[in-house]
């Protein structure tokens, strides 16, 4: 794949690329396509695909049922992966996938996330293929399985029927023309785990309507290997070669936040310094509350903490003068007034001066905060991710989370669904649903304010 400046025209696929010929609608992404991509497409396609993957991730962590997921993925794909030029739809699919490989190859954690979301997406799309297309994909994957012969089928018919009935597939009882695949059991771990297949002498007998699981396993393991290779390539050459062009885009993409822009307080205008204590209690998410309390306690925060809290306060509507006053009041208790003006004030003004464009000066999203790596003496980061269990429990109960909600929250934390844990906290504290989920600390704040205002209005 070659990325070109926008004024250059881009060519379409050379027809020799194996990855497209297998199935016209569901590419397997076996090798990077030979085509040129315009720089702006490079980024915008990736962002569109990212919206799909993030939507899937959100749906899964909210525990949506299979049929709900089905609908959700359909929706996400339709809204984000369109292209006005229909001949470009497939290109967009492939380009966006390969760009995100670059973005998500770089750490174990990123790879893991990308791998599960892409596999979920693939699984969904595979299921919607025609039987013929499905078979073509299986052939393309060179599946290590063979259809069960007639004689073998006859001898196992009873057991296969027993399995089908045990999982409620009554309508698909094995008939004479049923196709079963015989595969080593370790190729279909998910079917084995659910006792959804008959297993005999090391082989699992997979019904045609179950092959998606087999195919998805292979898709996943190929992609997993590919990501490691991409990572190597990235580290050894691409990052260096592209340091002025693609590298910044790639590095920004994984922490990019796709929700609304909170850099300018819109909805509630300004907040004033005297309200801030009250607001911290009622409407700050835990990450900000913690920074805020630590600042009040220690009269100091390290740089990353100042950035996380300072930009949040900017987004919440604290103007530059109040902000200076706020930080001055605390810091001067520790470092003295003079040192504050000399060492810190500039930075705070700077945060306000360069609004807009630069990602660094917009309030941090949850994604970015969660991926940060606080060290000794740091208080920034997301408590759901970075606190130990005990500290987190204590912090939550200080916030007023009751013990029942606490267990739900801790359950999500254990599953590493930090944002969902935060969402449940929000819901418990406000006794109101938060369907969109928490994606941004400033969204937490504004959602909370909205609810509180509504409550006040209705009681007035």
């Amino acid at each position, binding site marked *: 794949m070659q990325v070109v400046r926008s004024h250059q025209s881009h060519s379409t696929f050379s027809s020799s690329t194996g990855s497209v010929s297998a199935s016209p609608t569901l590419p397997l992404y076996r090798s990077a396509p030979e085509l040129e991509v315009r720089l702006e497409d490079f980024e915008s396609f990736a962002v569109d695909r990212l919206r799909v993957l993030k939507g899937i991730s959100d749906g899964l962590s909210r525990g949506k049922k299979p049929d709900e997921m089905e609908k959700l993925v359909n929706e996400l794909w339709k809204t984000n992966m369109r292209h006005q030029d229909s001949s470009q739809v497939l290109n967009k699919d492939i380009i966006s996938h390969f760009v995100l490989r670059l973005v998500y190859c770089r750490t174990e954690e990123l790879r893991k996330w990308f791998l599960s979301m892409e596999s979920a997406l693939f699984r969904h799309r595979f299921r919607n293929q025609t039987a013929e297309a499905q078979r073509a994909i299986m052939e393309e994957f060179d599946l290590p399985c063979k259809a069960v012969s007639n004689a073998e089928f006859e001898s196992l018919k009873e057991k296969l029927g*027993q399995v089908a009935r045990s999982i409620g597939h009554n309508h698909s009882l094995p008939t004479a023309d049923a196709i079963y695949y015989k595969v080593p059991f370790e190729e279909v771990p998910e079917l084995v785990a659910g006792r959804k297949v008959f297993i005999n002498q090391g082989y699992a007998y997979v019904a045609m309507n179950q092959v998606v699981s087999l195919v998805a396993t292979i898709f996943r393991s190929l992609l997993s290997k590919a990501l490691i290779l991409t990572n190597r390539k990235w580290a050894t050459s691409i990052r260096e070669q592209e340091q002025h062009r693609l590298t910044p885009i790639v590095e920004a993409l994984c922490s990019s936040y796709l929700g609304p822009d909170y850099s300018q307080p819109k909805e509630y205008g300004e907040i004033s310094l005297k309200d801030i204590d009250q607001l911290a209690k009622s409407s700050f998410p835990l990450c900000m509350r913690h920074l805020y309390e630590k600042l009040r306690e220690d009269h100091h925060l390290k740089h990353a903490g100042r950035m996380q809290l300072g930009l949040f306060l900017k987004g919440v509507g604290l103007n530059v003068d109040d902000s200076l006053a706020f930080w001055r009041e605390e810091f001067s208790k520790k470092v003295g007034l003079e040192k504050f003006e000399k060492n810190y004030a500039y930075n705070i003004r700077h945060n306000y001066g360069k609004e807009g464009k630069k990602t660094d000066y917009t309030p941090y999203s949850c994604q970015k905060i969660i991926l940060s790596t606080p060290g000794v003496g740091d208080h920034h980061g997301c408590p759901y991710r970075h606190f130990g269990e005990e500290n987190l429990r204590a912090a939550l109960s200080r916030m007023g989370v009751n013990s029942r909600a606490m267990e739900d929250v801790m359950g999500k934390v254990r599953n590493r669904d930090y944002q969902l844990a935060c969402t449940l906290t929000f819901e418990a504290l406000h006794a109101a649903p938060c369907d969109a989920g928490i994606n941004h600390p400033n969204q937490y704040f504004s959602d909370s304010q909205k609810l509180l205002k509504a409550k006040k209005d209705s009681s007035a």
Partner: protein
Amino acid sequence: MTRQGAQEESDNMLIDEPQLPQRAQIAALPDEFNPSYLKLYYSKLFPHSDLYRWMSYGNDGKHPGCDSSYLGRREFSYTLDNDIFVRYNTFNSAAELENSIKEKCPLKIDIGPIYNLNPANRNAYAGDNVLTPVERELIFDIDMTDYDDVRYCCSGADVCLDCWPLMTVAIKVIDTSLRDDFGFRHILWVYSGRRGVHCWVCDRKARWLTNEQRAAVADYFRVYKGNENSNKKVTLMGQVLHPFLARSYTEVLKEYFETKLLTSQNILSSEERYEKILDMIPDQSIASELRAKWQDGRRSSSAKEDINIVRWEQLKQLLQRHKAQGVRRCVEEIVFTFTYPRLDMEVSKHMNHLLKAPFCVHPKTGRVCVPIDPNNCEEFDPTTVPTLTQLLEELNREGFRSDVEGEWNKTSLGNAIKLFRSSFLQPLLKSCKEEMESSYNAKLQQSKNLLSW
């Protein structure tokens, strides 16, 4: 004098003075486990070379396909006196392994995975060279404490012949499935020394399973859902049972429940106990009908028949002719609840879990972790497993010489070691050899093909 020194001295006394009157010696051996006897056990009885040959999986031979780094990448960890836990011991030869065990005299030896690199040098690796487990037997750990809600004879760490059949059931169910369903051949069952059993699946394919695949096998065996706070722990879904569950039920569970556990555990004898079972019945009217019958006391049943059996038959009759399938299924659910194996899932799911080596001596009971023959597991009796004290007495009685090792033949450990060799080690090593041969030939063939291009 150091403690270590003191121990050596007392051991030497035992070794050097076999001419002492036997009676005096027997009396001198206290009944409980005594760490100072371990040294003698490790030097005279512990089957070092068998452990070595097993762990080498054929790589200790002269075949050009042997991987000489193989054993050295395997983690052994020791629990020493004073609860000191030493991980990442590695050995490159039979002698190193044996000398280390004899010298350190560990209370417990655990076997870990084989890593990509020698774990003893783990601190020297940096960057991409992270220590990762690459190979590990598929293991299962079944512990009687997990059955405390379905056994009334003992609880916690204790076992007796009334509850041990639960382990027999577990061995039968899991062993059959590992062989018939998963196609494994080289399976070792070991008594854990106190209240449970361990299982080692050593086929090449099993050793190479990923964590996800291990979890899948473990989940295949799992029927317990839910938590402490729900009565019905087993939920069997679907119109019929999966063939594995159906076979386990008809071939093992049902029989053990009806002919052994029902009466030995007095599962339906008292109100407190039968209420637990009535709670599992989804149809309230049936539960009340049975309750009314049973509260009536013994009058209605003939004195000759066991009350548990009578009540079980009554329960079955009412449930099995019910029109709702969920109610009929309840009979099976009760049997599963009281008999089906309960695995420690975490142990099986991760390659890096440690598991106690066979032939260790349990420090609390003094019993040796001997292999169990799955084909005759109903004959296994945990209360007659040789103890350290007993073995040393046998040695003393026989009279032994300080220059001869491996005298297990003269003791009751002999049968255990023979079983280990004949039913597990020899067939395993034979397969290893064949596999090595064929993979080596395949490689040769491949390189030949490359050359001819």
